C-alpha cells in the first residue's frame, strides 16, 4: 500500500464509493448517474423493484461488467479498469443472483473455484479437500458430490460459502436468501455478523423487508436506474416505510380469505406415491383450493411435486381427477401437461427458461400444441397469448419480443410463471413462485393465483417463505421424512406455527 492510499483510506469513511455511475444497454438505461458510498464494516442493503438496476450496479462494482460512464473508488482510490479477477484480488467478492456453478466439478472444487490453494502452480488437493470439508460442515452437502446433481438451494449455498470464506473485504450478496429455509437464513445472518465484527463490509440485496430490517445498518433504494433514496439508519424504519421507499407508494399486502374444503369432494387424489425420498399414502386436493407445502430440504415436498409432474421416475403412485378413474402418475412433463398438470420449477436458470428466446416464445413454449393448427403455429394466437401474460405479469421490458437473457432476475421469474399459467391447468404446482419477485408485484402474483383458484383450479404452492404461505393458502401440509407429518388449516396457519414446523427441532 502506498503512502498516499494509506492516507486516503484513513480519511475516507467509505470503503467503496461510486460516482455518477451509468450503464446503458443499447436503448435501455439500466443505471442512470448513481452516486453512493458504503461505509467500512457495515452491512448495506440495496433495494428496489424488479429491473431497478440492483444487479447491474453490483455487476459493475465487482467488475463483471464495465460501466458506460462513471467512477468506482475503493479505499478512496479510483479504479482505472475493473475486471473480476482484479476486484477479487482487491477483496471484492460477488455472489450473483443466478448460481454460478461448474456442473461437472465436485462441490469442493466449486467452492475453491479460482481460489484453489496452490504451491508452485500445482493445486494442493489435500488442502483443498480439507478446507472444503470444513466449510461444508453442517450444511448437509457432500464435498465430493457432482455440483450438477445438487438442487438449486445447495448450488446457491456453494456460491455463498465461497464468498464467505474468501477472506474478502467486501462481500456482495445478490438475493442470497431466495428459497433458503428459515434455519439456513439464520445461519447466513449469524455468519455475516461474525464477519462484520472482523471488519468485513457487505452489500446485501433482498426483496424481503424483514431481512433488511434485521441485518442491515444502512440502505440505498434504486428506482428505474436512479438512486431514489436511502437511509444511514435502517433500524429506525418500519416494514411499511421500507416498502414505501421502494415503491414510491403505499403497499397493500394481499391476504387470501381462507376457505374450508373438508366436506367437498376431492378434485385431485394422489395415492401411494413412492419415489426417491417420497412415501405419501394419500393426499387429496379440492377444486379451488390452494395448499401450501413446506418442510426442510429433503423432507419430501419438492420431491413429491417433481414426481407428480413426471420429472423424476416413480416406483408407484396414481393420480385421479374428480370422478375419473385413477391413472399412473405421468411419465414425462409432456404427459403431465396433457393430463392438466402444470409445474413451475424453483430453478428458472436451469429448467425454466430458454434464455436467448424472446419473452413471447418462452410464454408460449408449453402451449405450442394448442396454438397450432395441424402443426403450424398461428401468429395471432401466439401474440394474443403472450401479450396477455406479458401484461398480467407486469413484465418490465420494451416488449414481448425482448430476449429473456436481457431481463432482470425477477422479470425472468415472471416470464416463467406466465408460461406455466398459460397452459390452463387443472392442477397447478408452483415451486417458489415469487422467488426474486419484488414486494409490489408479489401481491399481484398472489392475487392472480387467488383468482385462478376461484375458477376451480387446485393449486399447490411449495415455499420456504412462511409469510407468503400464510397470505396465500387455505391449508398447509408440513412434510417430514417423505410424508405429510402435519396439516394446518384455517386460523391455525400462522407464521410462528410454520416456523416451528420447518426447523429441525420443531
Amino acid at each position, binding site marked *: 500500500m502506498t503512502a498516499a492510499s494509506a492516507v486516503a483510506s484513513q480519511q475516507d469513511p467509505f470503503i467503496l464509493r461510486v460516482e455518477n455511475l451509468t450503464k446503458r444497454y443499447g436503448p435501455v438505461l439500466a443505471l442512470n448517474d448513481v452516486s453512493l458510498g458504503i461505509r467500512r464494516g457495515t452491512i448495506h442493503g440495496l433495494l428496489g423493484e424488479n429491473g431497478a438496476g440492483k444487479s447491474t450496479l453490483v455487476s459493475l462494482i465487482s467488475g463483471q461488467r464495465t460501466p458506460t460512464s462513471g467512477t468506482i473508488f475503493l479505499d478512496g482510490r479510483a479504479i482505472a479498469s475493473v475486471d473480476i479477477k482484479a476486484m477479487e484480488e482487491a477483496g471484492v467478492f460477488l455472489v450473483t443472483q443466478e448460481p454460478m456453478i461448474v456442473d461437472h466439478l465436485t462441490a469442493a472444487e466449486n467452492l475453491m473455484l479460482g481460489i484453489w490453494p496452490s504451491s508452485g502452480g500445482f493445486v494442493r488437493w489435500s488442502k483443498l479437500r480439507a478446507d472444503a470439508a470444513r466449510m461444508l460442515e453442517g450444511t448437509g452437502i457432500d464435498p465430493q458430490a457432482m455440483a450438477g446433481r445438487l438442487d438449486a438451494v445447495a448450488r446457491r449455498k456453494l456460491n455463498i460459502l465461497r464468498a464467505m470464506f474468501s477472506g474478502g473485504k467486501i462481500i456482495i450478496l445478490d438475493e442470497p436468501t431466495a428459497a433458503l429455509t428459515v434455519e439456513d437464513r439464520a445461519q447466513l445472518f449469524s455468519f455475516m455478523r461474525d464477519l462484520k465484527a472482523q471488519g468485513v463490509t457487505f452489500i446485501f440485496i433482498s426483496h424481503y423487508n424483514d431481512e433488511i430490517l434485521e441485518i442491515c445498518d444502512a440502505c440505498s433504494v434504486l428506482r428505474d436506474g436512479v438512486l431514489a433514496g436511502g437511509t444511514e439508519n435502517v433500524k429506525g424504519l418500519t416494514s411499511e416505510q421500507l416498502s414505501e421507499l421502494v415503491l414510491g407508494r403505499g403497499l397493500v399486502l394481499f391476504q387470501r380469505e381462507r376457505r374450508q374444503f373438508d366436506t367437498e369432494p376431492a378434485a385431485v387424489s394422489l395415492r401411494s406415491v413412492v419415489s426417491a425420498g417420497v412415501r405419501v399414502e394419500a393426499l387429496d386436493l379440492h377444486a379451488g383450493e390452494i395448499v401450501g407445502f413446506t418442510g426442510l430440504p429433503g423432507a419430501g415436498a419438492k420431491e413429491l411435486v417433481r414426481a407428480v409432474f413426471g*420429472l423424476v421416475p416413480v416406483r408407484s403412485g396414481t393420480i385421479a381427477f374428480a370422478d375419473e378413474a385413477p391413472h399412473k402418475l405421468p411419465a414425462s412433463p409432456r404427459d403431465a401437461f396433457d393430463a392438466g398438470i402444470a409445474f413451475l420449477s424453483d430453478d428458472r436458470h*436451469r*429448467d*425454466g427458461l*430458454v434464455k436467448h*428466446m424472446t419473452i413471447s416464445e418462452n410464454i408460449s413454449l408449453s402451449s*405450442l400444441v394448442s396454438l397450432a393448427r395441424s402443426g403450424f403455429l398461428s401468429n395471432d394466437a401466439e401474440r394474443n397469448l403472450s401479450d396477455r401474460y406479458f401484461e398480467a405479469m407486469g413484465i418490465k421490458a420494451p416488449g414481448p419480443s425482448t430476449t429473456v437473457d*436481457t431481463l432482470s432476475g425477477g422479470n425472468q421469474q415472471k416470464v416463467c410463471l406466465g408460461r406455466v399459467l398459460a397452459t390452463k391447468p387443472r392442477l397447478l404446482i408452483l415451486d417458489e413462485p415469487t422467488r426474486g419477485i419484488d414486494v409490489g408485484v408479489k401481491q399481484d402474483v398472489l392475487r392472480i393465483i387467488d383468482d385462478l383458484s376461484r375458477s376451480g383450479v387446485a393449486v399447490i404452492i411449495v415455499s420456504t417463505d412462511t409469510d407468503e404461505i400464510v397470505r396465500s393458502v387455505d391449508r398447509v401440509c408440513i412434510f417430514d421424512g417423505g410424508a405429510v407429518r402435519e396439516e394446518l388449516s384455517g386460523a391455525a396457519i400462522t407464521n410462528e406455527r410454520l416456523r416451528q414446523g420447518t426447523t429441525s427441532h420443531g
Partner: protein
Amino acid sequence: MNQVASALAAPAAKTPGKEGTSVLGWVLHNVVWIWLVALVVIFGLFNQYFFTTFNLQNIMVQATVLGMIGLAVALPLLVAEIDLSLPANLGFSSAIGAMAYSNLGLPWFLAMLVGVGVATLIGFFNGLCITKLRMVSLIQTLSMMIILQGALLALTQGRTITNLPDGYVWIGQAAIGGWPVMPIIFVVALVAMAVMLRKTVLGRSIYAVGGNPVASNSAGIRVDRVKIITFTIAGFLAGVGGFLLGSWQMAITSNQGSSYLLYAIAAPIIGGVSVFGGRGNVVGVLGGVLLLTVIQVGLAIIAVPSFYVGMIGGFMIFIAVAIDAIRVRYFG
C-alpha cells in the same frame, strides 16, 4: 435465386429484438452477405469471365448439392448435436439407389426412392443412438461415417458406377432455356425448411431444445423425439443430395460425397448456425453455401494453383467460427 434469397431474407431481418443496434452488430450479423458481395466483385475484377451467365449457372449448380447437405448438417446443429456421417450417408445411399436399379432391376424412380429411404433410415438410426442410448453424437456419427465410407467402398469394390439410367440422370442435366433445373430442388428444400423452422411447432421445438434441453423438457417438449426427427430429416436431405450428385455427375465413385465433409459443416456455421445449438436460420445457411461455392469457383477461375485452394478454404472456416464466437459474445 437472388430474388429468392432476398424474399427469404426479408422476414428474417424483421425478427424483432434480435438484431444488434450498433453498426458493428449489423455488420457481424450480415457478415456473410457482405463478404459474398465483396468476393463477387473482387473475383469479377480479376477475371471478366466470372460475371458471365454461364458462370452464374455453374455456381448455381455447384451450390445445389452443397446446399442440400448444408441444410442437412444445420438441423442437428440447431439441437446442439452434430451429424458427421451425412456426407458419407449421401454417397452410400446413392450407391444403394443405383444398385437397386442395376442389380434388382427396379425402375429408376423406385430405385432412387430406395436410396433416399435408406439415407432417411440411417439418419433415424443416428437419432435413436444419440437419444435412447445417450451416445455422444460427435463420436457416434464419426463412427457411422467410417462405417458408411467403408460400406460404399465394399459395395462398389472400388469401381465407379456409371451405368445410370437416363431418367436418373435427367434432373442433373436438364435445362430450360439454358438454365439448369437442378437448383429448383434446392430452392424447394430451402423454402420448406424455412417454413418448418419458422412456422411450425416442430421448428419452435427445435430451437428450444437447442437453447436449453432441460428447460424444454420441463416445458413439455419431447426432447428425444425432436432430436430424432431432426436427424431423420437430415438423413432424408442427404439422400436427396446424393441422388442429385449422382445425377449431375452421371457417376457414383467409391468415395462419393466424402469431399463435402468439411464444406458441409462449414457452410451452416459460416451462415450463423451456432455449434452450441438454438441459433441460426435457413437464410444464413444459404449465405454460407453461396459464399463457399463462390470461393471455390472463383479460386478456380482466377487460376489459383490447386495446392492453395485447400489452405484458403481452411482459413475461411477458421475465420467463420471466430466471427460466430465474437457475435455470440457481444450480441447474444
